[in-house]
């Protein structure tokens, strides 16, 4: 209960010309936790990332990072946060070590300080033997690890990442999350944006953001528990007709989308056999599953996660 907030965002609004990207966002990020900002592309999470990483200036509302007001203590905030961008921020023509050295000097570290730190952080991300290779020669996964080493080099208390697993294969993605999950024990708060549900499950708390507004905030488990019961999905060539019969015959309110019909079922697995028997003539397949964050999103916004996002 006595946890300190690493980030507090209060009523933040941001617009690009006429388009409103953030429409009154308020949230808290607990210190030394992993916090996920989940949302479809164009939902506003990248804008929030840009604000928190101090890349974009705050227009309206207030943001405190590590107890400092982002407007008044800009340089102090910058010194204490680490940022990992979605697109590469390493110079491909330089070696990994050269990139880290430039970063260290930008942060005002002394030579004796950074030489040791560079070796340490390269060891942590497993790049010690590749440190003298140019970044352009590294695979996507290794380059991302180098980005991470760079973001952590000046020992930030808060690490902010934008879609960190973009372009990574599943193995590299797994490695990345393995590593991120060790950071809170070392005193680092992790805040990451993602559009991947399974990544959000790694977070201690998440905020789901859509069309510039938060639609849900909480622990992934609690959010899923809100749904109650299981989610039944039926594939059918005549989904509309099936939905109508579900309502009229069984009193179930279902949602249709293309060839799929889905609804929540609190009676759980026990009702499945009779349901299959009933729907059998009209269905291609049926599945029943515990609710996912996507179901939370669907419930809160009324549309599918991948539905109506516009490009940011």
């Amino acid at each position, binding site marked *: 209960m006595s946890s300190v907030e690493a980030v507090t965002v209060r009523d933040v609004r941001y617009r690009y010309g006429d388009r409103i990207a953030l429409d009154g966002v308020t949230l808290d990020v607990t210190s030394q936790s992993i916090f996920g900002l989940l949302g479809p592309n164009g939902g506003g999470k990248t804008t929030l990332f840009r604000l928190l*990483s*101090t*890349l974009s*200036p*705050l*227009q309206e509302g207030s943001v405190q990072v590590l107890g400092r007001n982002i*407007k*008044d203590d*800009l*340089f*102090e905030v*910058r*010194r204490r*946060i680490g*940022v990992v*961008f979605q*697109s*590469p*921020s*390493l*110079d491909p*023509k*330089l070696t990994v070590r*050269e990139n880290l*050295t*430039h*970063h260290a*000097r*930008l*942060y*005002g*570290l002394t030579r004796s300080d950074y030489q040791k730190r560079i070796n340490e952080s390269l060891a942590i991300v497993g790049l010690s033997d590749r440190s003298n290779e*140019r970044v352009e020669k590294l695979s996507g996964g290794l380059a991302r690890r180098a980005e991470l080493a*760079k973001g952590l080099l000046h020992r930030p208390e808060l690490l902010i990442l934008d879609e960190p697993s973009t372009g990574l294969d599943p193995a590299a993605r797994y490695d990345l999350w393995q590593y991120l999950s060790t950071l809170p024990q070392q005193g680092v708060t992790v805040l990451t944006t993602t559009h991947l549900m399974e990544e959000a499950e790694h977070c201690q708390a998440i905020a789901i953001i859509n069309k510039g507004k938060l639609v849900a905030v909480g622990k992934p488990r609690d959010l899923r528990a809100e749904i109650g019961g299981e989610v039944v999905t039926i594939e059918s060539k005549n989904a509309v007709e099936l939905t109508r019969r579900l309502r009229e015959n069984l009193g179930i309110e279902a949602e249709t989308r293309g060839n799929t019909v889905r609804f929540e079922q609190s009676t759980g697995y026990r009702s499945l056999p009779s349901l299959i028997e009933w729907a059998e003539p009209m269905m291609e397949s049926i599945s029943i599953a515990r609710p996912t964050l996507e179901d939370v999103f669907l419930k809160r916004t009324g549309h599918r996660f991948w539905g109506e996002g516009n490009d940011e």
Partner: protein
Amino acid sequence: MSNSRALSDVAVSVAPGSTFGAALTLAEREVVRFLRQPHRVIGALLQPIIFWLFLGMGLRGSFRPETPTGSLPYDEYFFPGVLAMIVLFTAIFATISVIEDRKQGFLQGVLVAPVSRVWIVLGKVLGGTILALMQSLLFLALAPFAGIKLTVASVVGATLLLIILGIALTSLGFVLAWRMDSVQGFHAIMSVVLFPMWFLSGSVFPTDGAPAWLAWIVKLNPLTYGVAALRRILYVGQETAPLPASVPSLTLSIAITIGFTIVMIAWATKTASRR
């Protein structure tokens, strides 16, 4: 748009611990990445030589700019003009990276570092100036082939002037690049603004005998004075410099060039802190 942030940026600009070190590391990066791109190095060295050799030799037979005491072979007249061209285009190319780097690339990380924009500008300007100086000094070594005798005084003077010009033109490039969101837009500016700026600077032809309106454009072009200063410095120590009457005096040229440089640095710094 975001004036409040701009003010706070400037206000705290002395505060961060890393200051000049940040500018140096950015400049160093600029030079290292240039040297690691062989096609850029070769292009940068060959292009001015090709220009000078072909245009200089080609026009040599038909065009001899007149001087008060006689006339001047065109390749000799054109030589300082090519030096100015090297500085102009190296400086400009060094700043193009700002456009792409900013959205995705190295600059993103620099922008969130605890470094005031002033040092970021300075790093970029220093980097571009070093590149321009390296190339123009290599070209300067060819001066004897143009009939210009190099002395210690003229080399030292030209070096200083090339540094000043480099700072001015990289700053100008920075101002243009910072506001652009596409490299294509920058190319348009290059052909509409920068190219005319070069050939209307007395680099390619003297204004003696040119229509008055054209002579006026040249007179109003700040680069004209940079080129004139270079011309005069290359003949420093000689009793009469073999130059057309329209070339402004050394004192005036240096004064205007220094003024131009100060204005450009100030403008670049202001532009960057406004983001």
